[in-house]
Structures are given as structure tokens and as C-alpha cells.
């Protein structure tokens, strides 16, 4: 019968709105307002999952994020793995499956593990699967014990959002204490951010029949929510979990169902002056043999299903407790028509007020459970005196347990605030705050309503802790952590093997890990360790509470940053032209996307690169050099500042002239290379490599602010104020003349390494004669507003000269042919200028500059250096992989170098390479050997220049 366990009336569900869903392929019906768990229970589904390791049948134990037993995988548009069944809102068309079982939880082939359970205790993986390699076994073990897979496709529609918020007070939890705190703060005019994980405000009041000042407690909730909704200074979110407490009161909130349809989930990063932790308390499980059987549930969850969702999880029930809270549960169960066969109370005495609530029900005091009958569903329990004895069997299909309550201190602990063990409550409670936060309500250890709000009426708590049933004759595994299949015997084993710190016990057994993070079982693990070691719980302590408090979608954390937006990206005015003209775009450092090469139809990378290089070597090419870092420096002390940060002298430059230079770091290694031009007496322009522009800027500012605060140097970044089209090749001058400029381009009037201002194509321009290709080259800088027009003009008038756009692949080839260094290739964080054959850039005239002392110290120590050389394979058609090692004789020995670059030279019509080789400068003409995995390539060591070694072309 459909919904056979649904009560005829009651519950906070909409019975006028039936909802159809499937679970493990079977169709069911529930109501709007149900969770998947409540709907399954309403339909009498008992076995909903299999356990992680032993594949034991499991049912639903909880009703919220504490649920340890049943995780589900959602299909279709809800696709998501490992969701606690109790946190999945029911909606029409929902499709869910159990995890950890095949083909179904009712008949699971993995259940065979139960036969070997005694041979696979905690830690057996690590002891057993050591040889030959853990990774050999890991995939199949993970598959056998694995949880659901991540969805294979992105959501069909909608997107995730992450946003920021600020508040005077953030309140986590909209139960009675949280609502009261929000009301107080809101009335005081504070900016309040109230977030609660439930779909409705009220917390525990949603499940209980309590009163406030003689009225139903939910009426008080409704009034409070209504008042808050009228306050403009209050943000109130439901279905939004505060899942992380970071430094400086930064709280992370996951809002699972924002009111905008296009937004799947929203992540809030809230910075609050004060945090109020009103997260309530979590009921604990009780530990006895076979305490994981379907039908064993938390008492408060039974109450929630009965009252909130109108579901009776069983017809005949036994309750097992060590505190007063189940007596109120029993009242509600009886009212719902559940036959309460008995209450087993481990305490020797029960307060009369509690007994009065359940007159007519058999209460066995000083009694515990010594056994459970039934495998796929509870059929009965054996009630035994806690002092021992044979006991009696009581038939039931539902066992509601309460091991007491633990304040939900996860956020408190995440804030690094301290905990203390409260003997009266038998629980860890908030102690000293380490950030601006306070706990209120049950989270602070105030476990009854009368302690939380004025007029609240509740039964006293009255716990006598019991960390596990300890009577003889028990059968079956007694689970401490149901989700991870960690039993009492596993903790005992860990302790026997010396893992006696609670953190070690956690890692040895995996107790307290996983989706539920041990919400119902951690305290029992600690108690078991305490019992075994004879220590008070305070001395055993807790493990570290880590975020997230409940599972969070990666999408919600990422927000907009997915697919194309994962990393920032930058454009120049020519980016679109490049794309329109077929460029293959590359990340080029500092988040710039530049063209790699421009293939024609049917052309591969190498053919395209050869064509582009040929154009530059024999005709003319042009590339967009805008991303190069550019800075204007102003001030009287700029000359001596540049002399300090560059290894060569810059202060001697005359206005209009420039010089190539190296910047060293304090340890004498190469930080960057670039050129510096003197614009006038006090104004300078320097350029840096694209990828290091920001780092060089920081480097300069740091020096000025820490080392030379009294120097007058003012730096302005102008990378994006001046874009450049670099025209290069033997015909560059002709093309630039055709473009049109009022600058005298004659070699003697505008020589290499000089700077001129004027107009180009009618635009204000700064033209610089530098060359990264080894050819005649003009870097034409114009404002970005003019760049696209300049580019079009260059391409138009360059067409008769055969001009081609050049990508970064060709730039790489051209610079290797010329032996120009590249950061990240030849400059690898180990070499200095001398190693690169650039000792000429290390000034002997300056008394000091950054890195000088380090270089001298390092080199005065002697020793072998890796030096830049050219390499030519005997076979000209043999390409050598970049990064390949060079070893003596090609033998399997310590390397004496590596290949930094290898390109097809259009000048020599063969592969040429650069390498860093020990004592390389002295080994020119010798044969070295590149060692590959299956081969050795003999190479001739040469000078690291393959084209125009005298530099006549670039100076032409």
C-alpha cells in the first residue's frame, strides 16, 4: 500500500501536493515538504543502504545532517553523489539510488564481506596490501568500498554563485536560541545575518510539541520570523548551512535553494563583527551489539518523523535511553499510534516527572540492550540488566535510542575556541572563545527550552552517560561510527597497537571521518577510549573539527569560476583580430592570451611556424608585443636606482637612448631581463618580460619602500597605456615607411637601442629600436585606442611586402636561433649571467648593485657551473626533447646538463638546440650525449648562436 506508514493527519507537509519519485528504480509517492528519508519511511522502505566496508544492511537512523547510515546518489538534473538521505528535499521526478551496493541494498553481492568481517578489521588495508605496491590494489578497493562518483556532466542549466556579505552579527542556526538572538540584534538596529540549515526556521521545535508561555512553540517561531522579515537590517536565509568558520570571523555559508531560478546554489562569504553559534545539539547513538540494524533509529528522529512529517517508522517500538528526553518522544509516538512495548533506561532511577508522562508503558530501569534480533529489520531486542543476566526478548520493529545530546560545537571548534568536558551534561561544551563569537542555546549546553527562551517549558535532561553497553553475552558488532563501519573492537585494536592518542585512533580506524564527520558517534569513540585507558574524557580530548560541517558542492565554492572563467584572462585590442585570423591562442604569462601560431587551412604547427619564421628572416613579420611589462619612472634618483637594480650601468644613458640589462635577485640569480630607455633627464621607461611584470613591479616598490625610502623615484605602470606592434625583418623599415611616420627612420638617425617619439599612421607613437628576433625591428607603441587601427594599417601596407603575423611559437624559434635567453628555459633559477655568456652585462665599474656580492661569493667558491651552449645532433633531422638530460657518454649517471630548447631552424634547415652543460663554454667542439629513455643522441657542442653572431642584422 502506498505510504503505508503515513499518519492520517498532521505533519508539516502539503498533502494536497503529491510528489512522485523513484528510489533504486522503484516508483514511490510522497508529499511536498517531505525529505527523501521521510518519504521512504512513509512507504515502508526499511533497507536503504549497505555499509561502507562490511556491506551490512542499513536503514535510516537520523533525520538531518547527522544521518550516518544512508547516503544516496541523485540522478538527472539533481545529479550529486553521497547525499545524506535525510537532507534531500523531495521533489517531483526525483531519482535516487543507494550507494555501496550492487545490484540493490536488499540483495547486495558485496554482502559476502560479512563472512570475512573478522579478518578485515581496522587497518587491514595497510597491513595486507603492501606488496608489491598499494597502488596496485587501490583502485579495486576503492571501487568495492567506494561511495558515489562525482557527476560526469555539468548541470544542464543554471549556474552557481558566490557572493560576499558583511554583518554586525552572524547567527548560525534559527532554532529557538538563534531566533531569539536575531530578534535581539535586529531590534537593536544591528546588521544581522541569520542562516539556518533547515528548510524552515524553528530547529528542534519543528519536531517537538513544546509550548512557550502557554502557546505552541511554533507560534512563537512564526511571530519571530514575521518580525524579522520586516527588518531591513536582517538577512534571514533558510536551507543555508554555515559550514566553515575561518580566521577573522569569516564565515562560509552554503545556500542550497536561492530564490532565483537560474542559480543552483549560492555560497556566501560573510565577514561578521560577532558570530553567534546557535547550532543546537545532536543526539548520540547508543553502542550495543548490532546497533546498526534497519529499524534502529535516534529517538529524536523518530519524534521528528512522527510530528514533522506525519510518518510512523514502525508499529511496535522499544525505546532505549540514558536520559529523560525519550520520555517526551514516547508520548508523541503513542499519540501517533505506535505501540511502545517498553522503555529500557540504563539509569537505576528515573525522575517521576518523566515516568508520569508515560504512565501505562513498561519502564525497565537499570536495563540495557544485550542483543538485537533481525538482519534486514529489527524484529526484537533483548533487555538485560546492566549488571548482567540473561534478560528477556521483546518483540519490536523499531528501536528508538538516545545516548544523550552533544552540543553542536563544530563551528565553535573551527574558530579554534576551546572546549571543556561538562560532567553534568556528559558532553564537550564551549569554553573560551578565540574569536569574537559566543555560543547560545543547546550549542552552549543549555539543552532544555526553559533555559533558552523565557516561558519555554521542557522536561529536565538528567543524563547518566553510557559510552557503550558492557554486559557479557553480547553478540554482533557494536558500532561506534556507523558510516565507516568502525566498531568497539576496532578502537580496542587501535589502542592495543599503540595508537592511543585520539587523533591516532581516528586515523587508524577512520572513526569520525566521512560525510557525517561522526556527528552521532564521535563522543562514544572518545568515551570508549576513556573507558579502555581509565582516563576522564577531558584528558582524552576531541579530534579537530574541520570544515565543511556538511557536504558542499564544489560548484558552490567555485561560484562563477568554472570552465572559461577558471582563471583570469587578458586581451589586447588585437586579440579579436588574432582569433578572427585563425590564431591558436596560448596562455602567455600574466594571464595574457597570445597567438601561438597562425595555421592556414590544412597546415600543422611546424609548417605554420616555419612559414612565419621564414617571413621574418627573409621579409617581414609583425607581432603584438603589448603584454610586455612597461613602467615609467620619474625622479632625481632614478639613475642610481636603475644602476642598483640592473647589473650593468644605466645612468650613463643619454635621453633617447636605451640599453639591455639584467635584473638580479638578492641571491645573484637572474630575476628578469629587459631594456631601459631615458626619455629625458628625469623620466625613464623600462620594459620587463610579460610573465614577470607584476613581480618586477613589486620588487622595485619593495626596494623603494624598505631599502631606499628617501630616494625620489616614482613608478607608474604603463603596460596598458602603450600597446605595441613590433615590425621585424629585413623589410621592416620599408613597411614602417609605408605605414607613414614623421620619425626619421634612417639607420644613422634612428640607430639600434634608441627611442623616438612622433606619429605613426597619424597616431601619437613611441617607437623603439629593439630586437628579440635578431632582425631589424621597430617596436611601435601607440595608445590602445589606436592599436587596432595601427595593426590594420600595418597589415594593409605590409601585404605587398609579404608581411605575416607572428605567434609566440615563431618568436621562440627566432630567439633560439639567435641565442637570446628566455626566462623559464635558459634562466631556470640556477644560472647567473656568466653561465649564460653574458658577463659583459655584469658591470665592473659600479661599486655595488643588487646580487653582485652573491654572484661573486658563489663563483669564488669554484666548482663546476652549468653553462649555456648550442647543441647540434649528428642527424640534422633529429629533434631533441626540451628538458632532456645530458649525461657523461649517455650513460645512466648523474646528469651534467639539460636541453633547454630545440627548434627547427629555417636558417640552417635543421634542428638546433640550446643546453645548459657543465663547463659548457670550454667544451665547444666536443661531443655530448643526450640520454633518453630508450636512446642516446650524440650532439656537437657549439656556441649558443646560430644566426648573425655579430648582430649586424639587428643593427642594420
Amino acid at each position: 500500500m502506498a505510504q503505508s506508514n503515513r499518519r492520517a493527519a498532521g505533519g508539516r507537509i502539503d498533502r494536497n501536493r503529491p510528489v512522485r519519485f523513484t528510489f533504486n528504480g522503484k516508483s514511490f509517492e510522497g508529499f511536498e515538504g517531505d525529505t527523501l528519508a521521510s518519504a521512504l519511511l512513509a512507504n515502508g522502505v526499511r533497507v536503504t543502504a549497505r555499509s561502507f566496508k562490511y556491506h551490512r544492511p542499513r536503514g535510516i537512523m537520523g533525520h538531518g545532517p547527522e544521518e550516518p547510515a544512508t547516503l544516496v546518489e541523485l540522478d538527472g538534473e539533481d545529479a550529486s553523489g553521497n547525499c545524506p538521505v535525510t537532507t534531500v528535499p523531495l521533489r517531483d521526478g526525483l531519482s535516487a539510488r543507494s550507494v555501496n551496493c550492487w545490484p540493490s541494498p536488499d540483495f547486495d553481492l558485496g554482502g559476502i564481506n560479512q563472512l570475512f568481517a573478522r579478518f578485515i578489521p581496522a587497518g587491514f588495508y595497510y597491513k595486507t596490501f603492501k606488496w608489491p605496491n598499494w597502488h596496485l590494489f587501490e583502485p579495486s578497493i576503492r571501487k568495492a568500498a567506494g561511495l558515489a562518483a562525482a557527476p560526469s556532466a555539468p548541470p544542464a542549466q543554471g549556474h552557481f554563485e558566490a557572493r560576499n556579505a558583511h554583518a554586525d552579527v552572524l547567527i548560525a542556526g534559527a532554532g529557538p536560541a538563534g531566533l531569539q538572538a536575531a530578534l535581539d540584534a535586529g531590534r537593536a538596529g544591528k546588521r544581522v545575518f541569520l542562516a539556518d540549515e533547515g528548510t524552515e526556521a524553528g530547529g528542534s521545535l519543528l519536531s517537538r510539541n513544546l509550548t512557550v508561555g502557554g502557546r505552541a512553540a511554533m507560534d512563537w517561531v512564526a511571530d519571530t520570523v514575521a518580525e524579522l522579515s520586516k527588518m531591513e537590517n536582517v538577512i534571514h536565509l533558510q536551507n543555508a548551512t554555515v559550514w566553515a568558520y575561518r580566521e577573522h570571523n569569516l564565515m562560509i555559508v552554503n545556500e542550497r535553494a536561492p530564490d532565483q531560478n537560474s542559480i543552483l546554489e549560492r555560497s556566501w562569504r560573510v565577514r561578521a563583527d560577532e558570530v553567534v553559534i546557535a547550532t543546537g545539539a545532536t543526539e548520540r547513538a547508543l553502542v550495543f551489539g548490532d546497533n546498526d540494524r534497519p529499524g534502529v533509529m535516534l529517538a529524536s528522529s523518530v519524534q521528528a518523523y512522527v510530528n514533522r512529517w506525519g510518518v510512523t517508522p514502525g508499529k511496535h517500538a522499544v525505546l532505549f535511553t540514558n536520559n529523560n528526553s525519550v520520555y517526551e518522544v514516547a508520548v508523541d509516538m503513542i499519540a501517533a499510534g505506535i505501540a511502545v512495548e517498553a522503555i529500557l533506561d540504563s539509569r537505576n532511577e528515573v525522575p517521576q516527572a518523566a515516568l508520569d508522562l508515560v504512565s501505562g508503558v513498561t519502564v525497565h530501569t537499570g536495563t540495557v540492550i544485550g542483543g538485537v534480533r533481525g538482519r534486514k529489520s529489527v524484529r526484537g531486542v533483548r533487555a538485560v540488566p546492566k549488571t548482567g543476566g540473561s534478560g528477556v526478548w521483546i518483540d519490536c520493529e523499531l528501536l528508538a535510542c538516545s545516548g544523550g545530546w552533544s552540543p553542536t560545537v563544530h563551528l565553535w571548534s573551527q574558530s579554534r575556541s576551546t572546549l571543556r568536558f561538562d560532567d553534568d551534561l556528559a558532553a564537550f561544551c564551549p569554553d573560551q572563545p578565540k574569536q569574537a563569537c559566543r555560543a547560545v542555546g543547546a550549542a552552549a549546553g543549555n539543552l532544555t527550552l526553559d533555559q533558552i527562551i523565557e516561558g519555554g517549558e521542557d522536561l529536565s535532561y538528567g543524563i547518566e552517560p553510557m559510552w557503550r553497553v558492557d554486559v557479557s553475552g553480547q553478540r554482533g558488532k557494536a558500532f561506534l561510527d556507523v558510516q565507516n563501519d568502525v566498531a568497539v573492537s576496532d578502537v580496542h585494536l587501535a589502542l592495543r597497537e599503540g595508537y592511543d592518542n585520539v587523533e591516532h585512533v581516528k586515523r587508524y580506524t577512520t572513526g569520525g571521518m566521512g560525510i557525517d564527520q561522526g556527528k552521532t558517534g564521535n563522543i562514544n569513540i572518545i568515551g570508549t577510549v576513556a573507558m579502555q585507558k581509565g582516563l576522564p574524557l577531558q584528558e582524552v580530548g576531541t579530534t579537530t573539527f574541520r570544515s565543511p560541517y556538511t557536504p558542499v558542492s564544489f560548484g558552490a565554492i567555485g561560484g562563477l569560476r568554472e570552465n572559461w572563467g577558471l582563471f583570469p584572462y587578458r586581451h589586447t585590442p588585437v586579440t579579436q583580430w588574432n582569433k578572427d585570423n585563425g590564431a591558436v591562442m596560448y596562455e602567455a604569462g600574466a594571464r595574457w592570451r597570445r597567438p601561438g601560431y597562425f595555421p592556414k587551412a590544412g597546415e600543422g604547427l611546424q609548417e605554420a611556424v616555419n612559414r612565419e619564421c621564414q617571413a621574418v628572416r627573409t621579409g617581414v613579420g609583425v607581432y603584438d608585443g603589448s603584454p610586455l611589462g612597461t613602467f615609467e619612472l620619474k625622479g632625481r634618483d632614478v639613475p642610481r636606482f636603475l644602476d642598483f637594480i640592473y647589473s650593468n650601468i644605466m645612468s650613463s644613458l643619454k635621453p633617447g637612448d636605451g640599453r639591455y640589462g639584467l635584473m638580479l635577485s638578492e641571491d645573484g640569480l637572474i630575476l628578469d631581463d629587459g631594456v631601459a630607455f631615458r626619455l629625458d633627464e628625469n623620466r625613464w621607461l623600462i620594459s620587463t618580460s610579460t610573465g614577470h611584470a607584476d613581480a618586477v613591479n613589486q620588487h622595485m616598490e619593495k626596494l623603494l619602500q624598505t631599502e631606499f625610502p628617501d630616494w625620489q623615484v616614482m613608478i607608474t605602470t604603463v603596460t596598458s597605456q602603450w600597446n605595441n606592434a613590433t615590425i621585424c625583418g629585413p623589410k621592416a623599415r620599408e613597411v614602417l615607411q609605408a605605414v607613414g611616420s614623421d620619425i626619421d627612420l634612417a639607420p644613422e638617425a634612428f640607430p639600434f637601442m634608441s627611442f623616438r617619439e612622433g606619429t605613426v599612421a597619424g597616431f601619437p607613437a613611441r617607437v623603439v629600436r629593439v630586437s628579440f628576433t635578431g632582425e631589424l625591428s621597430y617596436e611601435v607603441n601607440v595608445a590602445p585606442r589606436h592599436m587596432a587601427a595601427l595593426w590594420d594599417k600595418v597589415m594593409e601596407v605590409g601585404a605587398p611586402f609579404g608581411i605575416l603575423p607572428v605567434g609566440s611559437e615563431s618568436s621562440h624559434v627566432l630567439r633560439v636561433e639567435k641565442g637570446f635567453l628566455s626566462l623559464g628555459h635558459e634562466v631556470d633559477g640556477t644560472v647567473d649571467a656568466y653561465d649564460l655568456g653574458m658577463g659583459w652585462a655584469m658591470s665592473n665599474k659600479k661599486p655595488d648593485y643588487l646580487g653582485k656580492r652573491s654572484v661573486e661569493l658563489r663563483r669564488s667558491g669554484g666548482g663546476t657551473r652549468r653553462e649555456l651552449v648550442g647543441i647540434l645532433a649528428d642527424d640534422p633531422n633529429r629533434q631533441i626533447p626540451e628538458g632532456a638530460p645530458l649525461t657523461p657518454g649517455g650513460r645512466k649517471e648523474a646528469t651534467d646538463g639539460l636541453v633547454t630548447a630545440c627548434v627547427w631552424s629555417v636558417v640552417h634547415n635543421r634542428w638546433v638546440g640550446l643546453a645548459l652543460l657543465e663547463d659548457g663554454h670550454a667544451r665547444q667542439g666536443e661531443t655530448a650525449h643526450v640520454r633518453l629513455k630508450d636512446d642516446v643522441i650524440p650532439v656537437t657542442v657549439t656556441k649558443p648562436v646560430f644566426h648573425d653572431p655579430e648582430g649586424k642584422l639587428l643593427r642594420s
Partner: protein
Amino acid sequence: MSYDVTIERCGLMALFDLKGAPDAVSKWAGDALPSLPYRPNSRTEKDSIELFYIGRDHWITRAPLAQENAMEARLMPTDCPADISIVRVSDTMTFFRIVGPDAGQVMSIACPMDLHDSVFGTDAVSYTEVFGLKALVMRCQDGIEFAVEQSFADMVEDYLIRATA
């Protein structure tokens, strides 16, 4: 659009970066600029020219693009004394305006700074982050205005479209 906002990617504006001792800058600029804002994260305005406090001895002035040449003529960046720096940076920043009832919500997606009007007033201006990028943020009529380095403008526009889809 899921938010009630209007997003405008603004055209170029005249921008000049100014550095130096306040007295020296004021003396050189004369009445070409509003009075210097001395309070951090604030701005001053005179006619259509604004002056933003960027840091100690550092300001950016903004004016309509049509005034760019006139401002350059008055500020004379290439002729100013050695102890101050004036650089035209009009092309380095792209401004966006987010206006409308939900402007605050959209900005909360983009920016971690508290832009509540009780904290970030009408004369406030500050460098902070927008979509993880360095950005200059200020109030404008009915919303917020911010500028990012112009090479990131396409990306920011893509993000805003995505955020408000």
C-alpha cells in the same frame, strides 16, 4: 536577467596619475584640479573633474575624455618638476557602472569589500578586488562604479553577464 540592474561598460575617460608631495602637486596643478583629498579612500570633485586618493602622495584624476588634451596642456606631464610625476593613463583603466535596485547584490558577487552605504559613503573610493582583480571602486548615482585594468575588461564583462544571467 536575474538581477534588476543596468550594466554599462564605459568609454574612455581622461585619467592622469599624479605622485609627489601634496604641496608640490597642488602648486604645479594650480586650479587645474580640485583640492587634494587628504583622507584615505576619499575623493574630491570640481566641475567635471574628480580627484581620487590612491595612497600616500598618490592620486588619480578623472575627467571626460573630451577634456584630455586640455588637462594635459594644463598639467604638462613632460615638463613637471622632478619631484612630482604626472603620467597620462587614460587607456589603462576601463570603467563599469552597475546601477539599479540590485546593484549591491551584483557587487557582492564581484567584490569582497563592504559597500553598504553606512560604511562606503558617497565620497568613498578605494582600491579593492572585483572578480579577483585589482579594481578602483566608488559610488555613483543609483549604484556603484568600478575600474579594472583595461586588458581585463572583456573578462569582467563576461563575468558580469554570467553573474546576472
